[in-house]
């Protein structure tokens, strides 16, 4: 008990001495442990790269970025937010990767008068009626990922499809999102369980259903296992597959190798997008971290650039309205190119076709193709009163 009070008193004393500086503090709550840790790691590194390039500033304002691991536990995200709001007087938050952490954490921040800029999660809970003028999503509304995949499947002319996703809300949302733009016939919806590592049974079902193509949404490790087993089962050469960005991103491709070749994906960003900002970003990222950036790194970087746009107008004071006017102006060159905020402060942007190809060095890399959707917004914006 005595230890406890001492530790707490110590922590708060530390906090008091640190609040004396004139920087804007940015609270970067992200997932660094658990299997999802690499998403947070890349988002953080992308974000810090942008801060670094400006010499510790964003939009000309000196910033200090506090980073902490939420362990993919909603309560931890909320706890870190409370701690920083209170003892570090942080007003501007970002970094959260997963929707569940976001849903628990964001209300705490907004109620305390803080600002939240999401570099990844865009849950529908906050994109419609519950939108907020201090809540920005710079990546995508969750459904966009799957809508773009549905649009791609339609564009490729598939008529009868089997859809697979884990049996939890994000999986079901994926299937709903896909169907919204696909328009063809869904022969079967197969739900896998969230702890599943072997998909042989589902693949046999797909084989038996004889679809034109399949759409599957399995993020992270499950997606990797799915792609490996898909290639191994021989279905890869028989049934085309369409996926959204979380199931075909740089790390997944790197860890499945040849099994990814031939799969059709979509994304709002890729390393080979020809704009100048992107070329510079990829080069700088590789130079600094000695690895290729992922889509999460690009999102972290873009989030930083957008925050810079807000800080340019708000300055060190960080007045929420001034910040908002700067944010909505989008006075920044984003690596994904075309971007503006919708009325619900979620993106309106382009989605590209993506595919994995054998690079010149024998490694499998992602290559972007034609636009699948242009100036695509989300379906919830109409419910937002902003």
């Amino acid at each position, binding site marked *: 008990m005595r230890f406890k009070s001492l530790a707490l008193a110590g922590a708060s004393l530390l906090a008091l001495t640190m609040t004396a500086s004139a920087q804007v503090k940015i609270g970067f709550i992200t997932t660094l442990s658990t*299997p999802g840790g690499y998403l947070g790691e890349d988002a953080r590194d992308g974000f810090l790269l942008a801060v670094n390039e400006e010499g510790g500033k964003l939009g000309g304002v000196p910033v200090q970025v506090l980073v902490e691991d939420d362990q993919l536990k909603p309560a931890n995200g909320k706890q870190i937010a409370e701690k920083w709001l209170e003892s570090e007087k942080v007003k501007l938050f970002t970094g959260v990767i997963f929707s569940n952490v976001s849903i628990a954490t964001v209300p705490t921040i907004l109620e305390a008068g803080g600002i939240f800029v999401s570099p990844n999660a865009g849950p529908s809970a906050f994109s419609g009626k519950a939108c907020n003028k201090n809540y920005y999503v710079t990546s995508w509304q969750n459904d966009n990922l799957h809508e773009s995949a549905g649009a791609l499947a339609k564009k490729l002319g598939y008529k009868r499809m089997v859809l697979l996703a884990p049996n939890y809300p994000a999986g079901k949302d994926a299937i709903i999102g896909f169907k919204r733009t696909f328009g063809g016939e869904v022969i079967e919806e197969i*739900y896998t369980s*969230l*702890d599943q590592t*072997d998909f042989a049974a589902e693949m046999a079902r797909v084989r038996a259903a004889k679809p034109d193509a399949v759409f599957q949404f399995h993020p*992270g490790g499950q997606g*990797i296992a799915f792609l490996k087993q898909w290639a*191994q089962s021989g279905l890869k050469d028989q049934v085309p597959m369409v996926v959204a960005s979380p199931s075909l991103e740089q790390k997944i491709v790197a860890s499945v190798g040849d099994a990814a070749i031939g799969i059709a994906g979509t994304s709002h960003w890729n390393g080979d997008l020809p704009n100048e900002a992107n070329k510079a970003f990829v080069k700088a990222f590789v130079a600094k971290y000695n690895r290729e950036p992922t889509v999460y790194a690009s999102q972290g970087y873009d989030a930083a650039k957008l925050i810079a746009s807000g800080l340019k107008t708000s300055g060190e004071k960080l007045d929420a309205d001034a910040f908002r006017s700067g944010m909505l102006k989008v006075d920044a060159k984003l690596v994904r190119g075309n971007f503006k905020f919708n009325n619900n402060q979620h993106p309106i942007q382009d989605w590209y076709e993506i595919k994995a190809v054998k690079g010149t060095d024998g490694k499998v890399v992602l290559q972007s193709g034609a636009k699948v959707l242009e100036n695509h917004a989300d379906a919830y914006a109409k419910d937002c009163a902003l």
Partner: protein
Amino acid sequence: MTLVLEQILNGLQFGLTLFLLAAGLTLVFGIMGVINLAHGSLYMMGAYAAALGAQWTGSFWLALPIGLLAAFAIGVGVELLVMRRLYGRDHLAQVLATFGLILFFNGLLAWQVGRAPLLMNGPEQLAGFIEVMPGLPYPIYRLAVMAVGVLVAVGLWYLIARTRMGMLIRAGSTQREMVSALGVNIAQLFTLVFGLGALLAGLAGVMVGPIRSVQIGMGEQVLILTFVVIVVGGVGSVRGALAGALLIGLSDTLGRAFAPSLLKLWMSGALADGLGAALSSVLVYLVMAMVLVVRPRGLFPMEG
């Protein structure tokens, strides 16, 4: 009909993969009486070592011994540093210590190797299919995994029933004093057995590397299902682990394969898909509960 056979084959294959993991865990419990939550971590370390080895050497066949050796070495290290202080202790201390090990190994890999999943390909020679019966092609690699599972089962049976070491192992679990009076170094024997358990975990990790994701936390994902397997089979019994693994593997796979279509006989398609998924995800736990009601100590309880 082919579909049913294929799904049964899938179930057997999944069951044998589970067996690879369960065998080491149940062996260690049966002989030393310790519950090792970090068994999944040894599986992960084996897979990581093999994946890194494959990147380095460019060959699955070289990566295989690297993974096994690493798992064995880590197992021996863990036994010498931690486990041997836990033999006389209650399960509580064992649970706590091995829980700490899980955190450590996950943290260590994130820190030293990185958080992103690793690439690991199967051997070229085992790519492709064999037509196991007309109209049913099956991936060679999966058949190889099954073969390894069968080999491990036979090998363990031989080791325990027919060799001097097996005799010592059997005696070690019941009559420690007598065996040590015979001049056998029990401490060394236990280190070796724990290493063997770790090696089996590592083998499981290496074998599934090419068909699953080699990533942090991969051990915990399978740990609980492994527990279900050995609880159903009878903790400590290798035979039980095999029976439990096949039962769980088959019921899980067949549930996922056929529950939705069976339900469609009574209800609408979308509802059946949803309910079927929900049902098949809890099916293995229901099987476990049913086995426990009938046989609280599993299908093949350990004697004594």
